[in-house]
C-alpha cells in the first residue's frame, strides 16, 4: 500500500516553464529537465550531459529539484546561492519555473535590404562553377539557406544566388560567398565567368527565401545537385556551430568526378558534426571505365536505397528543378509528409522563356 502511494507520487509528470519565452514542457518521472526539454524540441543549451561542463546551467526561480551529481565542481558559491542548477542532472520534484540564458523562443528573420558589393575574390570550383566573394558596403544579415539577388549594371534583370557560407545564425555578414554556375546562353553568368574581374561591382538585395533549417530532432536528408551545394553547406555550417546533433545524410549529385567540389568542406563538416554525418556523392555521367569507386546513377534514385525510415526524417532539397521534383515525388511515395520536405529549385536562364528574364 505504502509502495503504491510512493509509486503514484513518483510517477507524476511535472511541468517546466521557461521564463520570458512562453515555452513549457512536461518532465516525466526519472527524466532530467534537459532530456525533457530536448524531447520537446527546445534548443536548450547543453554539451557534456554529465554535470561537468556547465553549459546547461539555468536559474531555478520556482520549485524544487533533486540533482544527481554534486554540481559544486562546476557552479560557484554565488551561483549556488542564486539558485543555479544544471538541467542535465536535475529531476523535478515539483513544477518548475526556470530562467535560461541564451535560449531564443523564435528565430528572427532578417528584413531584406539593398546594398552594393565589390567582387574581392573569384575561384573556379569546377569547370562551370565559380565561387565569388563580395565585400558589401553595408553588411547583410541572413539565415543560412536564404539567397540574395545579384545584378550587374548594363545586364537587365537580377539573378538569385544562395549564400554559400553560414552567417552564425543570422549575423550580418560583410563578405558573403556565392556559387555561380555558368548557364549556357545566360548573359549574367557569361559575364561573370569570362569578363568580370576583382574590383567589379554588383548590386545586392536580400535576404530572401524560406529555405532555412527548422529546429527538430529528426535525422536530416540533404540532397543537392550542381550549385545547390551552396545553401546546404551554409545551413550545415551554422548547424555545426550550434552543435546540432541530428544525423545527416547528404546526397550530392554531379555529372562526373571532375564536377565534385567542396569535398574538403564536407570532410571538415563531418569531423565537426556531433551526430552521424554521411556525405554521399553520386555521379550520373561518369565514364564506365573510370576508377570512380562511389555511387553512379541519379542522385534521387540512389538516395532512396540509403533511407531506412523516410517518414521519420526531414528533407532539404536544392538544385536543378528536375532533380528537386523527382526527389520530392520519391520521398512522398515513401511516406514522407509534405510538411517535412523543404526545397529550393534553382531556376536559371535555361528555364526561362527569354534568356534575359528575371527568374
Amino acid at each position, binding site marked *: 500500500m505504502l509502495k503504491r502511494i510512493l509509486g503514484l507520487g513518483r510517477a507524476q509528470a511535472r511541468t517546466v516553464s521557461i521564463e520570458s519565452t512562453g515555452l513549457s514542457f512536461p518532465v516525466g518521472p526519472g527524466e532530467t529537465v534537459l532530456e525533457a526539454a530536448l524531447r520537446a524540441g527546445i534548443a536548450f543549451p547543453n*554539451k*557534456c*550531459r*554529465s*554535470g*561537468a*561542463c*556547465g553549459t546547461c546551467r539555468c536559474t531555478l526561480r520556482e520549485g524544487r529539484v533533486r540533482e*544527481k*551529481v*554534486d554540481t*559544486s*565542481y*562546476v*557552479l*560557484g*558559491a554565488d551561483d*549556488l546561492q542564486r539558485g543555479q542548477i544544471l538541467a*542535465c*542532472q536535475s529531476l523535478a520534484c515539483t513544477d518548475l519555473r526556470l530562467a535560461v540564458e541564451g535560449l531564443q523562443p523564435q528565430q528572427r528573420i532578417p528584413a531584406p535590404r539593398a546594398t552594393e558589393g565589390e567582387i*574581392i*575574390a*573569384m*575561384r573556379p570550383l569546377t569547370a562551370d562553377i565559380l565561387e565569388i566573394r563580395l565585400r558589401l558596403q553595408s553588411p547583410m544579415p541572413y539565415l543560412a539557406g536564404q539567397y540574395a539577388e545579384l545584378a550587374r549594371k548594363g545586364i537587365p534583370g537580377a539573378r538569385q544566388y544562395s549564400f554559400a557560407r553560414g552567417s552564425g545564425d543570422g549575423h550580418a555578414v560583410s563578405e558573403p560567398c556565392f556559387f555561380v554556375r555558368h548557364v549556357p546562353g545566360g548573359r549574367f553568368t557569361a559575364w561573370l565567368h569570362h569578363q568580370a*574581374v*576583382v574590383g567589379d561591382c554588383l548590386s545586392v538585395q536580400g535576404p530572401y527565401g524560406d529555405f532555412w533549417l527548422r529546429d527538430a530532432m529528426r535525422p536530416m536528408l540533404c540532397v543537392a545537385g550542381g550549385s545547390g551545394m551552396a545553401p546546404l553547406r551554409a545551413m550545415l555550417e551554422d548547424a*555545426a*556551430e550550434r*552543435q546540432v*546533433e541530428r544525423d545527416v545524410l547528404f546526397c550530392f549529385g554531379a555529372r562526373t568526378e571532375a564536377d565534385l567540389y567542396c569535398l*574538403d568542406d564536407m*570532410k*571538415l563538416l*563531418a*569531423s*565537426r*558534426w*556531433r551526430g*552521424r*554525418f554521411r556525405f554521399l556523392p553520386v555521379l550520373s555521367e561518369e565514364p564506365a571505365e573510370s576508377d570512380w569507386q562511389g555511387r553512379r546513377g541519379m542522385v534521387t534514385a540512389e538516395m532512396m536505397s540509403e533511407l531506412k525510415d523516410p517518414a521519420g526524417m526531414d528533407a532539404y532539397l536544392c538544385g536543378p528543378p528536375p532533380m528537386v521534383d523527382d526527389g520530392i515525388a520519391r520521398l512522398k511515395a515513401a511516406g514522407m509528409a509534405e510538411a517535412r520536405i523543404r526545397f529550393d529549385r534553382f531556376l536559371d536562364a535555361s528555364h526561362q522563356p527569354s534568356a534575359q528574364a528575371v527568374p
Partner: protein
Amino acid sequence: MLKYLRFTWMPALIALGTVAQFMGGWWLWSGLAVGIVLGLVLDNIAGDDLSEPTYRYPWFLNLCLFMTLPLLWAAAVGYAWHLSSDDLLGIGTAITAATGYDALAAKAATGPLHLLGGALSVGFVFASAGTVIAHELIHRTWSPVSLITGRWMLALTADASFAIEHVYGHHRNVATRSDPATARRGESGWHFVVRSTVMSYLGAWKLERERLLRRGHNVWSWRNRVLRGNAMTLLYLAFFYWAAGWIGALAFIAIALYGKAFLEFVNYMEHYGIVRVPGEPVEPRHSWNTNRRISSIFLFNLTRHSNHHAEDDRPFWELRPYPEAPTLPYGYLPMIVLGALPPLWHRIMTPKVKEWDRLYARESERALIREANLASGMPAFLEEETAHSASAPARTAAGEH
C-alpha cells in the same frame, strides 16, 4: 552474438592471465606477451572496425566492465602471493586441494626474472584494462556505483583523483593550454608523462578544494575525494606490505607508476599538438581518433575518441567511429611505443599535426597554431611560421583569379 562477445575478450584474458600466473616460472610473462602480440602485431593487420551495432542488452556490456575489478584484484593477489615468502592466504594449498596441481612447487620455481615479467604483465593489465574501464565508469558521474568501482580500479595505478581532473578539468579544457593532459607540439613523451601526472594531480586537488569550500566544508576532511583516493591506494600498498614486506610495497609502487605511465602515454597521443580556442565547442576534430579493430575491441572503444570528447555522456557501445576525424597512423600500443621514442614520434607525428592544421583547423585557431608552432622549439614547426609569412601575399594573389 559476436557483437557481445567482443567485449568479453578483455575480462576473459585477465582471468586466463591470472591462472597462468599461478603456473609460475615464465608463465608470469604471459600477460605482457599476449598484450604485445595483440597490440603490436595483430592490431596492425586486423584492419579497421567501423561497425555501429545496436545493443538490446547493455546490462551485459556493463557486466563486462564491473566484473573487471574483482579480476584485477585477483591478478594483484596472485602476484603478491608470488612475492610473499610463505603461502599467502593459503592460496597454494587451496589450489592443490581443489585441482591436484602443485601450485607451491610452481611458486618455488619462480625466480626474480620471472617476477619481473609478472610485474610488467600485472602493470600492463592495470593500465590496459583498469585505467580504460575506469575511465568509462568515472564518466558516469550520476551513478555512484560506477564512480566508486572506477576509482578503486584507478587506485591500482595510484590515480583515483583522475576521476575528478579528467571529467571536470580535461574534458572542459581539452586542446587548450590550460589542460595538463593535452600534449603540446614538440613536447617529448617523457616530459609530458611527468608534467601531466603532476599537473593533473594538482588540478584535481584544486577542483576538489573549490568544491568543498563552495559547499562550506573543511578541505582536510573525509569528504575530500582526493584524500580518499590516496587512502585507497595506501590500502593496496598496505596489502602488498602485509603480503611481502618491503619488497611487496616497492613492487606495488613500481607497478602502479608503470601503469600510470601507460595512461599518460595514452593521453599523450590522444590530443597531441591539437589546438582549440578556449570556450569554443569541443568537436570531433579536436581528438586523434583510430578505428583499429584490436585496439577498439580491447580498449572498449576508447579509440573512438573523437566522438567521446564531442559527446562525453555516450556509453562506449554507442560511440561512433568517425572515419573522417583526424586519425592516428597506428593503433594504441604502437603509438605508446612511439611515444616513448621521441625522435620516431616526431618524425611520424609532425607531418600529421601539419595535416591537421591544413585540413581540420578553423580560422579562429590560426593564431593558436602559430603560437604553438613558435613555442614548440622544433625546427619542423618553426619553419611553418617563417614559410607562411613569406608565401601569404602570393597566395592571396593566386586566389584572386
